[in-house]
């Protein structure tokens, strides 16, 4: 065996370093494409002309963009109305869920209640039921209360479905909010209401934004209840309206308008998340106590 001096000059290929250089961007790119491809495909279709949509082979980079599908939605159908319906229902149900859930969560986090763990367990169990199980029962309730074709028939169930998750998330948030802060506010002379509004609420905004957005998305996307409880055309929500888009004949599938409806249905959610992004990410509690 011959002993050789250690070769310290780098080998030409440098396999380990270049591997790391391309592996991360590549996998990130692949994951992004994998997640976004269907959405991007819908976006593209909504801007393509009908000929380009129908063309074989598939047109990936159309030479011509059109707004005709969007025009159709707004001019030949009351699509703005549908969006407004969805917005009203989702917003009110979210406000209701947060308005009822946050005080409940605060009570569960701060008061030493008897049977607290049983209560929390029961709330957790409720989240385990798929909403579809409640559907028939709810239908009876809606009929009995004569709530059909009334926004309340959607707002109340959506709020109820979102309530358990809201309570659980907000409770764990309140639990990690330092108790000293509230004690300090009491010593400063805040009343209970003043304390909740001036100290607890501002610190709770990130959590409220996060749970609120989740509740809003659930309500915005819900389909079965909206399909069944609302039959009056002008009161329909976006998911139902989009599913009922039809062509001139049953043999014609209006791919373009459907894609445009999908984009319009998603856009508000994207904007919402972008708008609240800073709230969600910002750790408002940092600096409250020694960190």
């Amino acid at each position: 065996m011959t002993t050789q001096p250690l070769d310290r000059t780098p080998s030409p290929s440098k396999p380990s370093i270049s591997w790391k250089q391309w592996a991360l961007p590549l996998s990130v790119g692949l994951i992004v494409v994998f997640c976004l491809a269907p959405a991007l495909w819908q976006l593209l279709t909504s801007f393509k002309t009908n000929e380009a949509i129908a063309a074989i082979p598939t047109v990936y980079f159309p030479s011509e963009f059109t707004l005709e599908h969007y025009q159709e939605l707004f001019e030949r159908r009351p699509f703005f109305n549908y969006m407004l319906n969805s917005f009203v229902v989702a917003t009110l149900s979210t406000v209701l869920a947060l308005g009822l859930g946050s005080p409940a969560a605060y009570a569960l986090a701060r008061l030493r209640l008897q049977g607290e763990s049983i209560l929390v367990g029961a709330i957790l169990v409720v989240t385990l039921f798929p909403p579809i199980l409640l559907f028939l029962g709810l239908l009876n309730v809606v009929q009995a209360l004569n709530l059909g074709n009334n926004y309340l028939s959607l707002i109340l169930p959506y709020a109820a479905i979102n309530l358990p998750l809201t309570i659980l998330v907000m409770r764990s948030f309140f639990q990690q909010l330092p108790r000293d802060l509230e004690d300090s506010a009491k010593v400063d002379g805040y009343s209970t209401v003043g304390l909740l509004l001036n100290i607890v609420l501002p610190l709770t905004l990130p959590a409220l934004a996060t749970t609120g957005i989740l509740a809003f998305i659930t309500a915005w996307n819900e389909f079965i209840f909206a399909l069944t409880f609302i039959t009056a055309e002008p009161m329909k929500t976006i998911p139902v309206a989009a599913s009922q888009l039809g062509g001139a004949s049953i043999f014609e599938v209006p791919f373009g308008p459907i894609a445009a409806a999908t984009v319009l249905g998603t856009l508000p959610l994207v904007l919402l998340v972008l708008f609240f992004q800073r709230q969600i990410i910002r750790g408002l509690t940092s600096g409250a106590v020694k960190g």
Partner: protein
Amino acid sequence: MTRTDPTPTIAPSETQQAMLELRHLNKTFSPSVVPVKDLSLSVKRGEFLTLLGPSGCGKSTVLRMIAGLEQPTKGQVLIQGEDVTHKPPGDRNISMVFQSYALYPHMTVADNIASALKLRKIPEEEVRQRLREVSHFLGLEALMERKPSKLSGGQRQRVAVARALVRRPSVFLLDEPLSNLDALLRENVRAELKQLFESQQAPVVYVTHDQTEAMTLSTKVAVLNDGNLQQLDAPHQIYAEPANQFVAGFVGSPQMNFLTLPCEAGAARLGDRSFPLPPPLSHARQVILGIRPEHVRRAQPGDTYTFEGKIFLVENLGMHYLVSVHIQATQQTTYTLRLLLPSDATWEGDSLQIALPPETIHWFDAETGSAVRQ
């Protein structure tokens, strides 16, 4: 630094009135958790009272009851002679510094300090005036518009103190305000706090488990253990005349040596020497001898109570050596004793002639633990 005195001057006749009084205070969380059993004490104007005790002994609970954040199960809290036991914290005219500082993270330093004043509808001009005074006093001027998250630990601590000072309360309450600072900063801030509160008229109740803080800051120390007041005295008395074995062991570092000695005929025996006991202990069968490591000496000619110690551990504390020795009392019994030797001390081999000066010895009843004096 110029000192402005935020509290109005007090007529001399008022100085003797107790600003804060606790009467038979008891807090029972559950039958097995009784952190405060029966506590009575009073604090006068200008006094600095420290509640000292091991972790979990109920110090914070006492403070929270004074603040009104916790309702006592029994007993009363009086501030300036007025029974405030059932008043909410905001109506008690006390201010409190929390261990975690508890600054409002969404408010600037200025708003943090001023929020209590604004709630009390103090005129805006005066609020600004007081803010200026206190920020100048504590050197916070440059930080007033920052949020707490943009402050260092020491700066947050100052803001918390400023928030308490600006209120000009009847009583200051501080719950371990230094425990989140690193050792060096703690020493500086401790000295600052001492000067700062010496210039205040309102009394301070200060909670700590750090005996150095208690000894350096206080005019009075209340040692608590197990929900009971063990001793309430000036710091030097707590050190020189501990009321019982717990206080003697808790205060002083390194800890006092305790030797359980057999007695006969009114004298305690250690090896071949016997110590005359104070009269109340003359019929005891056992007694506890306590002596602080700094009082144990190397034997000099003329010392009566001298023993031979076998060195088994030497710890260098910088200024001193902490030397642990065994004393062979009889065939069966050896005692362990620790003593401090100056850092320039030298010795040969592992044996040391040591002396126990009788005037520095504390005697404790072996059954009750309470101190018995000559």
